[in-house]
């Protein structure tokens, strides 16, 4: 068991450190750094959009999808106040209310 854990830890650490060190040390052609700037948006979107639209493994575009409704509440709060805690808290509150109501 500890051997499996050590193997998991090793491969995970290698994925973390390799590009963090290498990309800083080598000169990249111009379009790569320009592309890297958009990776945060890509990764956040990859969690958020399927998380809201495909919450339990199948796509749901209706008001009965609580994740989607709570996500819209969070998005409104985020664009209004630009505060992560408020965005998260308002969505969680919406989630609790939706579950109590439904």
């Amino acid at each position, binding site marked *: 068991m500890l051997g499996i854990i050590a193997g998991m830890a090793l491969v995970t650490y290698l994925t973390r450190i390799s590009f963090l060190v290498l990309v800083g040390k080598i000169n990249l052609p111009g379009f790569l750094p320009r592309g890297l700037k958009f990776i945060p948006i890509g990764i956040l979107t990859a969690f958020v959009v399927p998380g809201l639209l495909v919450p339990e493994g199948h796509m749901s575009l209706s008001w009965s999808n609580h994740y989607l409704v709570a996500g819209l509440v969070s998005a409104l709060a985020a664009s209004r106040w630009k505060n992560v*805690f408020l965005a998260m808290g308002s969505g969680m509150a919406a989630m609790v209310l939706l579950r109590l109501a439904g």
Partner: protein
Amino acid sequence: MENHDTDHKALKRGFAKMKEEKWPVKNLQEFRAALQEGAPLALSIFAYGLVFGVLARQAGLTYGETVIMSAAVFAGSAQFVAVGLMGAGAGAGQIVLATLLLNLRHLLMGASLAPYLSGTRLWKLALLAHGLNDESYALTASRFRRCGGSAAYFLGAGAVTFLAWLGSSALAAAVGNAFGDPRWYGLDFAFLGAFIGLLIPQLKDKVSWLAFGAAAVAALLAGQALPGKWYIIIAALAAAAAGVVGEAHAHRSAGHYRGHGAGNLPDQD
């Protein structure tokens, strides 16, 4: 000779002072900012870690193994999959390979933070690397975009997420889930809500919306077509490609229609 020595000493004192006073204050501020901004995400990780601690014990891991795994691997989704595979009797090679594939997204995260940390010493990067995860990345990337790079901020983001994950999985592995179903508190939405809060402020011009749209479509399609976490990597690459093309296009139109197309330029604020 004496004069030279004094100058030299004064210079050394000056450097020492700078090291002792100026930098640590800024670093401390960055570190604290990471703890504050990381608090909502730490809460979501804590809820997730409680579930992991319980599942790991159910899959037959001892308390010690659960804690060691959370400290040494520190990768939520890979750990969930691993204990699932262990429960199903999978072999060591299969479990390690699944872990590697699930965590390949760290490559892109590392690549995207690296340009901000090019002045950081190797041993520091080696330490910081262990704190790279979905949540600390989301925090750090948004911060660096707004305020520039800081190893201290990245350290704080890694530390707060690490403590939340380790603390909660250790707690739940010891006492079981004492808090009941996290869904009762809306905690299953905490992660999404926090990520929405980090994403929305980054969508401030046409090019970033284009990158968002490309990533959204790519994530949905790849999520249907491919197993595991490939959809995250595909979406990140789609956003990067769309961003580069969109920026090139915006610059070209700005060159042709100076004065008319200026409203379409990125980074106008």
